[in-house]
């Protein structure tokens, strides 16, 4: 099965090509063309509705007869991927690779750079420089493809129902398949460059799908924003790749990590910079401070896209990359410190913003940023397994939450403002129950998925010790614990405002509320089920409970020279930590319940009134977007543009103009020289010859008799001379 690994990304690629071609051939211009109406656009942008009536203004449309074919190709290709992915996981789990090996399939040599002449960095290793297109199957990539394909498959199924009325149906499925392909290339890549290809591929799909409703200005802008912010991160990432190539002379994961682990002292001094560069890339892709701003805006895309790309899979690529490079990061303690601080700060920062948002998807978006912060915090303190564990459980419950929010939006025909919801629990029961389960999971309620993974992170942070700053570990732990409370609070605020209480919209709207079709509710139920049981692969304390730790342990290569192995926390301490996190979560849940479900939001209103400055700052997301706009877009962009224009005019133009002047002067001299000296010489020769031939041409009379006379005279002269001077 492991040799058929290349089929896993191949199926979605084929699906993309088939769907894309079919859409391109089958799509026809819409009967009702979108009329350009700036006011309408603005109104839509202000109300923040992205689902309004997505099918009313489409440019092209999918041929209705092709719709089922599109679904069949789109879902079918991913289903095949799931099959082969699980086959591969079987190999890693209990099959031929169960002993912790890895399997690399080289498809072909992609870039051959010849023989390595410089052997300064890797002594005794005149390696060939090359990059292969190769897939790597080990426990980490197996875990990733498992949930990527499976959650991806559920979301594809969900999309059939959710996008059912959309005229760009075929385009949507083509993009979604392309995304699956890129994501699988990303996680299966066996070297940094191929990883980067997948990395850029998912970035492209993210851009395409955020701007899916491209005729809406805010969606198109959000797509561009995501793309540009990601470029900043990617710049750092590729610098990191250059650094790795310079250090190791290869980009292959196996070789790089093995070399680094074998001779840490040789590389450790340089790795801090390399790891920080890599982490900049991770910050961009995984929406960490300061590059997180694109993710909340990315909610302009269709909701299943938010679930798949901007919650479950793509945004965890940064965490995956850091976990993949754990050997390098462990050799760079300063970089680890940065990762931990950024992660912890992002978790807290995004959670506070999430407290005051009123758009159901925005709350979930900030929650995602916050949870990603958790994962980086885990990686930063060296708990890579806990980080990946949280990546997996987060994929389950956050996908469930997003799909649930999509179902709510679907039920309310596009309404996203939670202030206009309420009391939906009784009307859309399946959505409500699954949403509630996922909320309990993310809030850290005991014995659900989120509890185990979040607890693993909190325990690891509590145990963490930074030699650079001894107080930092406990500070981060306190921040993470407080964030857990905030998470529980804002999630239950969301549930209270959406599903509990009474409906706050109009009667007419209330009559239209309906449960979503089966294709949407079944994935919800499956994901809710996984949100319950997903955590049981990493049960702490119980002997043999930490299956995921055992599964992922092969990726944590032991370093030569040996770092002190993190000692196991005492059972009592672990229980205490659990009790603390449960207590905090309970406080958050109860506060949210009493303030919003029982108290009609009276207490929060009074708090907001008491500290208007704080409330406004949180409500407006700390004005970070405005700050970036003022400093980078207006300041550096436009101010810099003016500066550059002045520079251009005075220095560049000056240089160009003076060069032009010099050239003209020189050309004048050259032309004079040409005219008088060169031409003079040529003409002089010609004139001389002309003067000469004027004499001789007289001899050429053309009369034969003259010639004969000359001949005779000449003969006479010769004979006379002969006779005389004999």
């Amino acid at each position, binding site marked *: 099965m492991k040799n058929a690994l290349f089929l896993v990304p191949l199926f979605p690629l084929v699906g993309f090509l088939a769907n894309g071609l079919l859409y391109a051939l089958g799509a026809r211009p819409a009967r009702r063309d979108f009329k350009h109406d700036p006011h309408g656009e603005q109104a839509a942008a202000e109300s923040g509705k992205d689902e309004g009536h997505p099918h009313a203004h489409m440019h092209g449309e999918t041929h209705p007869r092709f719709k089922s074919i599109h679904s069949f190709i789109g879902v079918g290709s991913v289903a095949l991927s799931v099959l082969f992915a699980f086959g591969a996981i079987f190999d890693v789990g209990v099959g031929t690779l169960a002993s912790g090996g890895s399997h690399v399939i080289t498809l072909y040599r992609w870039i051959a750079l010849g023989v390595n002449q410089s052997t300064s960095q890797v002594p005794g290793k005149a390696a060939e420089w090359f990059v292969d297109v190769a897939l790597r199957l080990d426990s980490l990539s197996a875990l990733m493809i498992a949930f990527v394909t499976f959650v991806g498959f559920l979301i594809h199924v969900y999309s059939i129902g959710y996008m059912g009325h959309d005229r760009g149906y075929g385009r949507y499925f083509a993009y979604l398949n392309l995304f699956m392909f890129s994501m699988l290339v990303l996680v299966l890549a066996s070297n940094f460059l191929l990883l980067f290809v997948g990395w850029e591929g998912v970035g492209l799909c993210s851009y395409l799908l955020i701007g899916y409703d491209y005729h809406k200005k805010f969606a198109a802008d959000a797509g561009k924003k995501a793309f540009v912010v990601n470029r900043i991160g990617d710049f750092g990432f590729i610098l990191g790749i250059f650094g790795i190539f310079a250090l190791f002379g290869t980009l292959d994961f196996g070789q790089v990590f093995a070399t680094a682990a074998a001779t840490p002292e040789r590389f450790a001094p340089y790795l801090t910079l390399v790891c920080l560069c890599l982490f900049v890339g991770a910050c961009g892709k995984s929406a960490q401070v300061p590059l997180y701003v694109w993710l909340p805006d990315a909610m302009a895309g269709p909701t299943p896209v938010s679930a798949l790309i901007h919650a479950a899979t793509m945004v965890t690529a940064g965490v995956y990359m850091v976990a993949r490079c754990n050997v390098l990061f462990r050799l760079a303690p300063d970089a680890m410190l940065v990762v931990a601080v950024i992660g912890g700060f992002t978790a807290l920062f995004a959670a506070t913003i999430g407290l005051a948002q009123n758009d159901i998807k925005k709350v979930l978006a900030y929650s995602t940023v916050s949870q990603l912060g958790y994962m980086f915090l885990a990686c930063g303190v060296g708990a890579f397994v806990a980080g990946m564990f949280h990546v997996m459980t987060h994929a389950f419950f956050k996908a469930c939450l997003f799909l649930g929010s999509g179902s709510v939006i679907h039920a309310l025909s596009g309404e996203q403002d939670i202030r206009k919801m309420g009391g939906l629990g009784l009307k859309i029961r399946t959505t409500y129950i699954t949403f509630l389960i996922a909320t309990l999971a993310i809030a850290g309620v005991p014995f659900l998925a989120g509890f185990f993974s979040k607890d693993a992170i909190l325990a690891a942070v509590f145990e963490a010790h930074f030699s650079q700053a001894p107080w930092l570990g406990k500070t981060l732990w306190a921040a993470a614990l407080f964030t857990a409370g905030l998470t529980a609070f804002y999630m239950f605020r969301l549930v209270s405002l959406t599903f509990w209480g009474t409906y706050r919209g109009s009667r007419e709207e209330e009559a239209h509320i309906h449960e979503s079709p089966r294709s949407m509710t079944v994935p919800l139920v499956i994901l809710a089920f996984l949100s319950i049981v997903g955590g049981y692969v990493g049960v702490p304390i119980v002997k043999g409970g930490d299956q995921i730790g055992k599964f992922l342990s092969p990726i944590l290569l032991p370093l030569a020279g040996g770092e002190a192995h993190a000692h196991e926390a005492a059972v009592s301490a672990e229980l205490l930590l659990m009790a603390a996190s449960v207590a905090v979560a309970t406080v958050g849940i109860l506060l949210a319940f009493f303030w919003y479900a029982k108290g009609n939001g009276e207490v929060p209103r009074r708090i907001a009134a008491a500290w208007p400055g704080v409330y406004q700052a949180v409500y407006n997301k700390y004005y970070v977007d405005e700050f970036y706009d003022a400093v980078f877009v207006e300041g550096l962009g436009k101010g810099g543009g003016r500066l550059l224009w002045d520079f251009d005019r005075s220095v560049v133009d000056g240089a160009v103009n003076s060069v032009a002047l010099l050239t003209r002067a020189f050309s004048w001299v050259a032309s004079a020289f040409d005219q008088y000296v060169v031409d003079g010489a040529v003409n002089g020769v010609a004139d001389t010859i002309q003067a000469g031939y004027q004499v*001789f041409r007289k001899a050429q009379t053309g009369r034969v*008799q003259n010639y004969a006379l000359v001949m005779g005279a000449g003969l006479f002269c010769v004979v006379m001379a002969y006779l005389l001077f004999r």
Partner: protein
Amino acid sequence: MTITINHYLIVSFLLFSIGFLGVLVRRNFLTVLMSIELMLNAVNLNLIAFSRRLSDLTGQVFAVFVITIAAGEAAIGLALTISLFRQRKTLNVEEADTMKG
């Protein structure tokens, strides 16, 4: 008075000079041709005179060759005459000066 080789040579010289002068001064192409013929015959006379004087038949053989060549020369000359006349409607050699520099 006995006829000696000197007489022959003087006659031959006079004939050649007349012919050469004719070639140089006459305007009519036909006359020029005839003058050339005269020069050739003067040479023939010279050859035969010496042949007789030296009792060597080579000179006479050579004279026969010259006559033969003269016949060819006359044929080509006449062909040129006709060609020239057709082109220029004249036989004046002074007008045939296309090669003038």
